[in-house]
């Protein structure tokens, strides 16, 4: 019985990691599939979201104690808006010169990421900070005597499920989603049909960054935030996108799940660092055998 409960809790840990990877990977997959741009600064947008949440928490606790319980929902919205805004500015200034040049965009966005990290360091200090979680997120849910599932993990999962559902809904059922899919499949024809492809690109990039911002808000519930927190997840997020098949959202979900669960299951049997090494090695070996990823596009571009 003990073993099952440990397995359940470890599986749940994997799910929390899966949520962060999925949110980051969704944003990256949309941006890469849409514009052929690799955004190495995506981790920094996660950090923007996390720091925004921290700022909301700080303000709520210092100036408006009545909001100490409910600030978190405002913080999530705030995180989205800040990350969305920053992504919009970045696209306007730099990214739009780098479409269809993935290698150059990789290097340029890495430089932007460095500058953003230094901005965080100068604004918030080099030490890690933590947002104070509201009371209703603390504690855990005990379905049985021995299984202990933390509430903030459940909240993150619910948030991720909601957001993924919202993204899929918008992509496949809304007018904007129609425009996005048209631009991805055939940019020239979409432009000829009257879709403002530049505006769609800008909004898509900003939306992808906004999703990363929400991932950052979710991230504050499971860890503390420092200037370089984003860089912890960036390589994993890229592997999620590449492993899933760069333009496929279902692939992103599947690969995020596989990677997260593999790592957390292996952590059960060996040290954390060896688990990570083995997971990364396995992914690379599978990529060597199948470079197009799990769910590859049937059309060759």
């Amino acid at each position, binding site marked *: 019985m003990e073993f099952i409960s440990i397995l359940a809790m470890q599986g749940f840990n994997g799910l929390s990691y899966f949520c962060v990877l999925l949110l980051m990977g969704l944003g990256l997959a949309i941006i890469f599939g849409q514009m052929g741009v*690799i955004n190495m600064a995506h981790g920094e947008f996660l950090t923007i979201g996390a720091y925004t949440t921290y700022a909301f928490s700080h303000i709520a606790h210092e100036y408006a104690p009545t909001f100490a319980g409910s600030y978190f929902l405002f913080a999530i919205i705030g995180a989205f808006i800040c990350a969305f805004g920053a992504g919009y500015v970045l696209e306007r200034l*730099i990214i739009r*010169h*780098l479409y269809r040049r*993935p*290698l*150059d965009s*990789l*290097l*340029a966005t*890495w*430089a*932007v990421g*460095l*500058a953003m*990290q*230094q901005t965080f*360091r*100068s604004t918030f200090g080099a030490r890690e900070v933590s947002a104070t979680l509201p009371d209703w997120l603390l504690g855990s849910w005990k379905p049985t005597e021995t299984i202990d599932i933390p509430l903030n993990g459940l909240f993150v999962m619910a948030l991720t499920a909601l957001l993924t559902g919202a993204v899929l809904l918008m992509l496949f059922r809304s007018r904007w989603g129609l425009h996005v899919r048209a631009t991805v499949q055939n940019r020239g024809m979409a432009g000829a049909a009257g879709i403002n492809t530049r505006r769609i690109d800008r909004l898509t990039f900003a939306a992808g960054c906004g999703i990363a911002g929400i991932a950052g808000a979710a991230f504050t519930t499971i860890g503390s935030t420092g200037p370089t927190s984003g*860089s912890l997840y960036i*390589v994993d997020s*890229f*592997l999620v996108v*590449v492993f899933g098949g760069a333009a496929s959202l279902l692939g992103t979900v599947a690969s995020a799940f596989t990677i997260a669960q593999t790592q957390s299951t292996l952590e059960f049997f060996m*040290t*954390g*660092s*060896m688990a*990570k*090494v083995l997971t*990364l*090695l396995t*992914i*690379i070996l599978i*990529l*060597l055998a199948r*470079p197009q990823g799990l769910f590859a596009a049937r059309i060759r571009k």
Partner: protein
Amino acid sequence: MKLDIKTMFGRHSELAGYAVLALLIVVVLPLTLDIFRLNLIGKYLTYAFAAIGLVMCWGYGGILSLGQGVFFGLGGYCMAMFLKLEASDPISTKIQSTPGIPDFMDWNQITALPLFWEPFRSLPLTLIAMLLVPGVLAFLLGGALFKRRVGGVYFAIITQAVALILTILIIGQQGMTGGVNGMTDLKTLLGWDLRTDSAKYILYFVNAALLIGAMLLCRWILKTKFGLLLLAMRDKEDRVRFSGYDVANLKVFVFVLAAMLSAVGGAMFTLQVGFMSPSFVGIVPSIEMVIFAAVGGRLSLIGAVYGSLIVNYGKTVFSETFPELWLFLIAALFLSVVMFFPNGLAGIWKDHGARIVAWASRMWARPLAAVPASKRKAA
């Protein structure tokens, strides 16, 4: 008088560039700098090995590798393991609970030298391993990926993942590799003390000679048919394939070359600086090496060396005086190089260098021209 590089040296303008660089690093710098700063320059020149490798595989071959730190680190760690074993002879380590093994193994309660450390007791085997281990890794990685036509961005991301894997592995296995502190306290090479000033001078000149040799080797490779194929492959890979060449083999060769060059740089780094740690292996140092090559000019071997010198010098100067500003500066530099000057400083020199030299020579000759002709004759 029209002063122009092409008219001065004609066909040999490129060799003149090499001569100037050689003069700079072999004569001018050792004469003008004290040993401490010269040692720093030596350190920068070891990064230049990796930058030259990147010029070959990225500039000419079109393969962006964000994991050169891996090969740099592997070469450096091989040399460090040899030096560490030499510094851990039973007499100096008699205070340990197990004398004769490196100190970090002792701290981690390891009682016998692991098997993979044994070959590093001998210098010839170390030198072979230093070239072979990174070379074989590059061969396997490149072979598997290039044969499956994985290129461009996907390859770059996978090299990043490899850099991350190696960093985590080294840090995690503290007993075997020294962990996050790396291998320190390296003293002698076959009895020759590496920490004396004379040793540092000799190592500097050995490093400079190896670097110039590597540059000449790469230049020779580029001048052969292989060099032409590389350029063609970078620009129109499919056409080269349709012409009957095996593109994958070309790519593997140039990737292995870049890996071995970085490994030599890593070994020289260990010798000159006296330690090796995982902070030179990971993603950030790998991208810094790309920055050196990009700033200097990804198509120019000479540019790569100047790029390494300039960027590292800037890093030392600025991170001491304006630490907050430094990251912004390097980010801005990298961004402007990627967006506006894809061929780096070498590109600027090639496009505008003749004009700059002509302008400079006019400035220098101006005092003579200011005096009117009649007055000159009278005087």
